[in-house]
C-alpha cells in the first residue's frame, strides 16, 4: 500500500472532478456542486488512507515519494513526497475543502457560472496539495505561481463590487514576489551547477549543499520575500484585507486558510533548510517584523468597521505568531508554529464562513449594520462566538496549543519579544468579544430584521464539522504534534541553531536566584 503514488492520486482526484465539471452540459450546471463535493470527499478519503500509513519517526525523512522525469534539460523532476509538516498541511487542505464547498453552495450570484466557481476551487485544491508535497524546487515554484491563476479568477469573477481591483492587487503583489523568487531560484540552480557539476532542483540534494554565506543571504532574501508576501508579513500584507474582503467567503477561506500557509510552509521547508546560515543571520530581524505583524494586525483589527477586513487583520496577527515561532528555532516554537498553521486554518475558515453566512443574510459587511443576531438566529450567533473564541486561542480549542507552544518556545530564544507578543492575546480578546458584542447582543436592529433568518442544515453541517475538528485538536493536540516534532527536530539540526531546552533556562534562573 505504501508504494501507491498517494500524493499524485490525492491531487489528481480534484483535477478529475474539474474535468468532469468542465464537460458538464450547461443544462445540468447545478450538478457541478455535487461533483465537486464528491471529488473533495474522495480526496479526503485518499489523504486519510495515506495518513494512516505514515510512519512517525521513520528512518526516511520523506515518505510516499514518487518521482517522474519532466524536464531533464533543467534537471527538473516531478517529485512528490511529504515529511511530517507536509503531511499535516496536505491533511488540512483535504479536510477544509469539502466544508468550504458545502458552505459555498449558494455563493454564486445569479448570472455567474457555477461550473467555473466549483471547478476553479477544485483546481486550487490540486495545486495546494501538490505545492505542500513538491520535493523539486522548480516544481514547487511552478505550482506556487500556478496557484495564482485559479485564485485570481475566483476573486476577480465571483467577488464583491471592488473585486477587480482586489484581484489585480493580489495578483501583482504575488507576481512580484514570485518573480523575485524566480531570480533566487535561478541563482540556486547556478550554485548547484558550480558545486555539483550539473544543475539540479532536487530538494534533498540541494538541502545538503554548502553554499557560501554571501550568496546564501541573497538567495534567502529572494525566497523569503515571496513567502513573506504570501504569508503575509507586515509591511507586505496590504493585499490581504482587500482580497479577502472582496472575495466570496469560500474563496477567502481557501486564500487565507490554505494558500497563505504556503508562505509559512515555504519558510520552514525552503528558507531554513536550503539557506541555514542566512536563516540564522536574519532570524532576529524577521522576528521583529513578526512582532510588529502581531501587534499591528491586532490593533488594526480592533479599528475595522468591515467584518471581513477585521478577520483578515486577525490573520495578519496570527501569521505573525507563526513566523515568530519558525524563526525562534526551538522545538516547541516550531512545533507550535506548524500546529498553529493547521489550527489557524480551521478557526479562520470557521470565522470567514460564519461571517459570510451572516453577510449573505444581512447583505452588508458593515459591523454597525448588525445588532442582536443572537435573538433572531441563535445558532448563527453561537457559531460566531465559538469561531471567535478559537481565534482568540481559548484553551480547549485548536489555536490554544499552537499559540502557547509558540510563546513558550520563543521565550527561550527571545524573552523580550515573547513578552511583547503576549499583549496580542489581550488585544485578540478585545477584537473578538467586541465584534460579538456589537453583532450578536442587544436587540435586533439594522439589517437584522425582516428576512434575516437562521442558518440551514447544510450550513450547520459545514460549521459543526469544522468546530468538531477544532475541539478535537484543542483537546488532543498530540495527534499532530507527534507527527510534526521529528521533522521540526531535523529542521533545527539543519539550521544548526543551539537547542534551548527549558531545563537550561531553569538552571540559569536558579543560579540567579541563588546569587541573591
Amino acid at each position, binding site marked *: 500500500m505504501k508504494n501507491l503514488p498517494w500524493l499524485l492520486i490525492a491531487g489528481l482526484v480534484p483535477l478529475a472532478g474539474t474535468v468532469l465539471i468542465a464537460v458538464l452540459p450547461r443544462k445540468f450546471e447545478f450538478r457541478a456542486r455535487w461533483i465537486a463535493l464528491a471529488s473533495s470527499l474522495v480526496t479526503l478519503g485518499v489523504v486519510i488512507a495515506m495518513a494512516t500509513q505514515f510512519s512517525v519517526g521513520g528512518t526516511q525523512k520523506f515518505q510516499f515519494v514518487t518521482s517522474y522525469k519532466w524536464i*531533464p534539460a533543467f534537471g527538473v523532476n516531478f517529485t512528490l513526497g511529504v515529511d511530517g509538516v507536509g503531511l499535516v498541511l496536505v491533511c488540512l487542505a483535504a479536510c477544509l475543502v469539502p466544508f468550504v464547498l458545502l458552505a459555498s453552495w449558494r455563493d454564486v450570484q445569479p448570472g455567474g457560472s457555477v461550473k467555473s466557481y466549483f471547478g476553479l476551487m477544485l483546481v486550487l485544491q490540486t495545486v495546494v496539495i501538490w505545492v505542500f508535497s513538491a520535493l523539486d524546487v522548480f516544481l514547487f515554484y511552478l505550482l506556487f*505561481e500556478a496557484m495564482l491563476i485559479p485564485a485570481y479568477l475566483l476573486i476577480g469573477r465571483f467577488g464583491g463590487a471592488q*473585486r477587480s481591483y482586489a484581484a489585480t492587487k493580489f495578483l501583482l503583489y504575488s507576481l512580484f514576489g514570485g518573480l523575485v523568487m524566480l531570480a533566487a531560484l*535561478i541563482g540556486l*540552480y547556478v550554485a548547484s551547477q558550480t558545486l555539483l557539476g550539473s544543475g539540479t532542483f532536487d530538494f534533498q540534494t540541494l538541502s545538503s549543499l554548502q553554499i557560501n554565506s554571501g550568496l546564501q543571504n541573497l538567495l534567502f532574501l529572494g525566497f523569503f520575500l515571496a513567502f513573506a508576501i504570501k504569508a503575509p508579513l507586515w509591511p507586505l500584507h496590504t493585499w490581504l484585507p482587500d482580497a479577502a474582503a472582496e472575495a466570496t467567503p469560500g474563496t477567502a477561506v481557501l486564500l487565507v486558510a490554505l494558500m497563505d500557509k504556503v508562505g509559512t510552509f515555504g519558510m520552514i521547508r525552503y528558507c531554513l533548510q536550503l539557506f541555514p546560515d542566512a536563516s540564522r543571520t536574519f532570524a532576529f530581524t524577521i522576528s521583529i517584523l513578526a512582532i510588529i505583524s502581531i501587534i499591528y494586525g491586532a490593533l488594526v483589527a480592533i479599528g475595522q468597521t468591515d467584518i471581513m477586513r477585521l478577520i483578515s487583520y486577525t490573520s495578519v496577527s496570527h501569521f505573525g505568531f507563526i513566523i515568530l515561532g519558525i524563526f525562534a528555532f526551538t522545538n516547541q516554537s516550531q512545533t507550535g508554529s506548524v500546529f498553529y498553521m493547521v489550527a489557524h486554518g480551521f478557526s479562520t475558515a470557521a470565522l470567514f464562513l460564519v461571517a459570510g453566512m451572516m453577510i449573505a443574510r444581512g447583505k452588508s459587511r458593515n459591523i454597525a449594520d448588525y445588532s442582536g443576531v443572537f435573538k433572531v438566529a441563535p445558532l448563527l450567533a453561537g457559531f460566531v462566538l465559538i469561531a471567535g473564541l478559537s481565534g482568540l486561542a481559548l484553551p480547549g480549542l485548536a489555536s490554544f496549543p499552537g499559540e502557547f507552544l509558540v510563546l513558550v518556545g520563543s521565550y527561550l530564544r527571545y524573552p523580550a519579544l515573547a513578552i511583547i507578543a503576549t499583549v496580542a492575546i489581550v488585544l485578540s480578546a478585545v477584537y473578538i468579544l467586541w465584534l460579538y458584542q456589537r453583532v450578536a447582543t442587544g436587540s435586533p436592529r439594522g439589517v437584522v430584521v425582516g428576512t434575516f433568518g437562521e442558518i440551514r442544515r447544510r450550513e450547520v453541517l459545514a460549521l459543526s464539522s469544522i468546530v468538531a475538528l477544532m475541539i478535537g485538536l484543542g483537546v488532543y493536540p498530540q495527534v499532530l504534534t507527534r507527527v510534526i516534532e521529528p521533522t521540526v527536530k531535523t529542521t533545527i539540526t539543519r539550521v544548526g541553531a543551539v537547542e534551548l531546552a527549558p531545563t537550561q533556562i531553569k538552571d540559569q534562573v536558579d543560579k540567579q536566584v541563588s546569587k541573591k
Partner: protein
Amino acid sequence: MSTVLAATDGLFPAPVLEYKELAPVLIVLGAATLGVLIEAFLPRTLRFRAQLVVTFGGLGLALAALFLAGEQNSILAEGAIAWDGPARFLQGLILVLAVVAFLLFTDRKIDPGRDAFAPRVSAVPGSPEEQVLTQKLIQQTEVYPLALFSLSGMLLFPASNDLLMMFVALEVLSLPLYLLAGMARRRRLLSQEAALKYFLLGAYSSAFFLFGAALIYGYANSLRFSVIAAATASGTSSEALLLAGIGLIAVGLLFKIGAAPFHEWTPDVYQGAPTVVTAFMAATTKVAAFGALVRIFYVAFGPVRDQWLPLMWVISALTMVVGVLFALTQQEIKRMLAYSSIAHAGFLLTGVVALSPKGVSAILFYLVTYGFATIGAFGVVMLVRDGAGEASHLSAWAGLGKRSPGVAALFSLFLLAMAGIPLTSGFPAKFAVFSAASASGASWLVLIGVLTSAVAGFFYVRVIVLMFFTDPQPGQTTTVAIPSLATALALAVCAGVTVVLGVFPQIGLEVADRASLFVR
C-alpha cells in the same frame, strides 16, 4: 570553345554549390519568382488559387528539403553560408512560422472588403479610383511573392557566414517588408507612413551595417567570420578599426531586432502595417535577426568578447526597461504588443550575453515560443473589429470576455505566455535565457530581467482584466469576426505550441540543445 573555358577556369573558377543543403532557400526563391510570373501572366480570377498552391507548395517542399538535407555540419557556397545546428533550427523555425503566418494572409472572411490588403497600392487613399476598386472587390495577390522573397532573405540571414552574404540577406529580407508594411486596406495613410519610416530608418541601419563591414574588412582583410575571428585573436591590426566596425554592425543588427535605443520604428510600423504583415514580420524577422546577431557575435567577435560584452549588457538592460515602461502607457493594442516585443528583445539579449552553448539553445527555444505567441496574438487582434476595421484601441476590448469568451481566453493565453507565466511556453523560455545568463555571471542583469518581467506582467494582465472584468462602454460596437478555416487553424497551432511547450518544454529544449553549436 573548350580551350576558352579551360583558360577562364583558371582565372575565375566556377563556384561549387551544395545544392542539397541550399535547396530550402532556392526553393523559396523559385516559388517567389513563380509567383511574380503568375502575377504577370495569369488572369486575375485564377491568381489567388495559383498563388496559394505555389506559396504553400513551395514552403512544404522547402521544409521537406530541409529535413532531407542531413545533419552534417559544413560550410557551404565557397564559405559564404554556414550549415550547422543553429542555421538548420532557425531555417526550420522560420519556415514553420511563415506557414502559420501565411495562413493568416489567406483570410478572406474577416474584412468586408475580403482580404487585409489595399486593392491597388498605387491608388491615392480616399480617391474615386480606390472606391471603385473596393466596390468591385478587387483583390491583389502580389503580397505572396513579396513575402516569399522576404522569407528567402530571412532563411539566409542566420546562416550567413560572411559579412557580404549577411548584408545581401539583410536587404533581401528588408526590401519586400518595407513594401508590405504600406499595403494595409484600412487606415492607409498610417500604413504608408509606417512603410516610409521603416524604409528610411532601415536604409540608415543597413548603411551602418555596410560601413561596419567595410571597417572590419580593413581590419581583417576578409569578410569571412572565421578569418575575422582569427584576426581578432591574433590582435595584430588596429583595434580602432575593429571596435568601430563591431559598433556599426551592432547598430545595424540591433535595429533589426528592435533593441533600445534603436527601437523607435517598431511601434509605428507594427501599428501601421496590415496586422497579418505585422504578425509575419514580428515573428520571423526577430528570429532571423537574432540568428544573425548571435552568429556574428559568437563566431566572428567571440575572441574579443571583453570589448563588446559591457555594451551588450547595457543594451539588454536598457531594452528591457524601455520596452516595459513604454508598454505600460500604451492605449493601442498593436503598439502595446510592439513595445512588448521590444522588451522580449531585451530578454533574448540576456541569452546573447551568456556567451555559451546553453545561451544559444536558450535563445533558440525562446524564439520558438515567442514566434508562435506573437503570431497568435496578432491573429486575435485581426478578429476583434468595429465599424472602421480592427478595434485597435484598448477601450474597445472591454468586456470582450463576456461576449466572446473563447477569443478572449485565447488572447489571454498568448498574453500569459508573453508574460512568462508557468505552464505556458513563455516560462521555460525565460527560465532558460535567465539561467544561462546567470551561469555566465550576469546575475544583476537577470535581476533586472526578473523585475521588468514583473512590470510586464502588469500590462499583460491589465488587458486580461479589461477583457474579463470590465464592462464595455455604452455605445461600443466591437464585434468578433468569424475567421476562415485557415485563420482558425493558424490560431489553433499557435495555441497548441504555447500550451504543449509550456507543459512539456523538454520536447523543444532537447532539439534546441542539440542545435546549439556553431560551425566555424
